[in-house]
């Protein structure tokens, strides 16, 4: 069987599955980015807050999720998460199991890790804001919600973008470990294909190339986005 047939989209080719796997990896990472954004925001808020308890909790969270191997986090969420969901279901009178599907468990696990890193990114971005700009907003009578929406959030996002790019790349690669939960993302599909065809080298290379494709394309997207939002930072000449 030629390499083209094996990798092709024909009945004996693995191309179709690999494409689905690519999309699955992308989807896991995207969902984990969103989950991580929610956690990261809360984490940054906790770490910046005046309450010592909250700061301690925030610190503990980010230490734990940055200090424990990703593989362990994934296992813990995959198994522990199901028990938790089942227990919650039981409390509401649901009999039997409420499984956490491997996609959700994987995205949640990667999201929990991503959240720990995003928390640091947002905290740094927040501290980069010039306090005078917030004060200027207060001085024209903006209320708290408006200041948050119009001044704080846009600036945090702008400063956070480069850091978020790094977290995204990290999550993309962490998502390969979700393969241990049986989710058919790039890593697992490559392994299954490698095992079935006994073309180990070929499929691991293909898997690696698919990841490189994802990281380099998304890297370029982040770079372009940074360039766009960085317009207001650069010492160049403004557009318009």
């Amino acid at each position: 069987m030629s390499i083209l047939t094996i990798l092709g989209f024909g009945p004996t080719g693995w191309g179709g599955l690999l494409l689905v796997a690519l999309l699955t990896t992308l989807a896991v990472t995207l969902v984990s980015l969103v989950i991580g954004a929610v956690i990261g925001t809360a984490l940054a808020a906790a770490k910046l807050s005046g309450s010592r308890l909250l700061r301690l909790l925030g610190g503990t969270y980010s230490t734990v999720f940055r200090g424990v191997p990703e593989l362990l986090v994934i296992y813990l969420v995959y198994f522990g998460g199901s028990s938790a969901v089942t227990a919650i279901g039981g409390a509401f009178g649901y009999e039997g199991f409420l499984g956490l599907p491997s996609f959700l468990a994987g995205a949640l696990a990667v999201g929990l890790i991503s959240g720990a890193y995003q928390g640091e990114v947002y905290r740094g971005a927040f501290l980069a804001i010039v306090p005078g700009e917030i004060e200027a907003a207060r001085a024209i009578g903006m209320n708290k919600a408006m200041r948050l929406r119009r001044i704080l959030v846009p600036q945090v996002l702008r400063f956070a973008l480069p850091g978020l790019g790094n977290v995204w790349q990290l999550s993309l690669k962490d998502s390969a470990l979700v393969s241990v939960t049986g989710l058919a993302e790039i890593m697992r599909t490559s392994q299954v294909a490698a095992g079935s065809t006994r073309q180990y080298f070929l499929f691991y290379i293909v898997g690696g190339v698919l990841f490189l494709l994802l990281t380099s394309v998304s890297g370029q997207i982040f770079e372009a986005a940074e360039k766009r939002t960085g317009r207001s930072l650069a010492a160049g000449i403004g557009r318009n």
Partner: protein
Amino acid sequence: KEWKTVTITLEGAYAPWNLTNPDGTLGGFEPELAAYLCEHMKVECKLVASDWDSMITSLNAGKFDVIMDAMSITEERQKIIDFSVPYAHTHAAFATLNDSDLAGVEGTGTVVKMLPDYSGADAQIEAMRKAFEGKTIGIQAATVYAKFIYDKFGDIATVREFKTGAKRDLDLESGRIDLAFDDAVYLKAAFEKAGAPMGFTGPEIGGTIFGIGEGLGLRKADTDLKAMFDKAIEAALADGTVATLSQKWFKTDVTP
């Protein structure tokens, strides 16, 4: 509870018991048997692939309802999960490369019967212990075979655990390990695909040592499901379905 759909898990990488097709569907002896059983029980079955070494944990965590992955029925496992009646019974054996000096150890080609207390083939085991001293034996993690190898060979040989059988076979082929120990019908199929000529060495080990056969793994609570499957399996054994599928996939009869 009314069972309308049942989720069955297999590894999808333990040919010919079960395997993954290029289009992502699962094939092999067990998927085809499952199709028959579900048809018989009039329930809809969903097959999902998952990792062998975490299957029992996942079953109890509710990730799926049934394990159908050449899982031997043993007392150890019965403490945690329930089993259906066996739908197959196979031997286990050592494999090695044909050009290895471990090939053709005394008793190759015969079958010995051992009991769960490891009795029944003391002479043959002793001969193998002598032959395998200082060698490296590869097993699939979390199998009954792993326990057997640790107990009977762990003191004289290096044991290495693999996540899948296929990866272990690869290391046998490349010479990283000297011996593999696994289900005989699985190994026989693996020989055909292997890149280097390999075969059994030493006797095939049968009897009840590895349990009374391979059955479906079920959660203890799902007694109704077990009853349904028991009936279906008995029917499949009675009408010759198991035998036919066995000939098709294993070229031998594995009916218990």
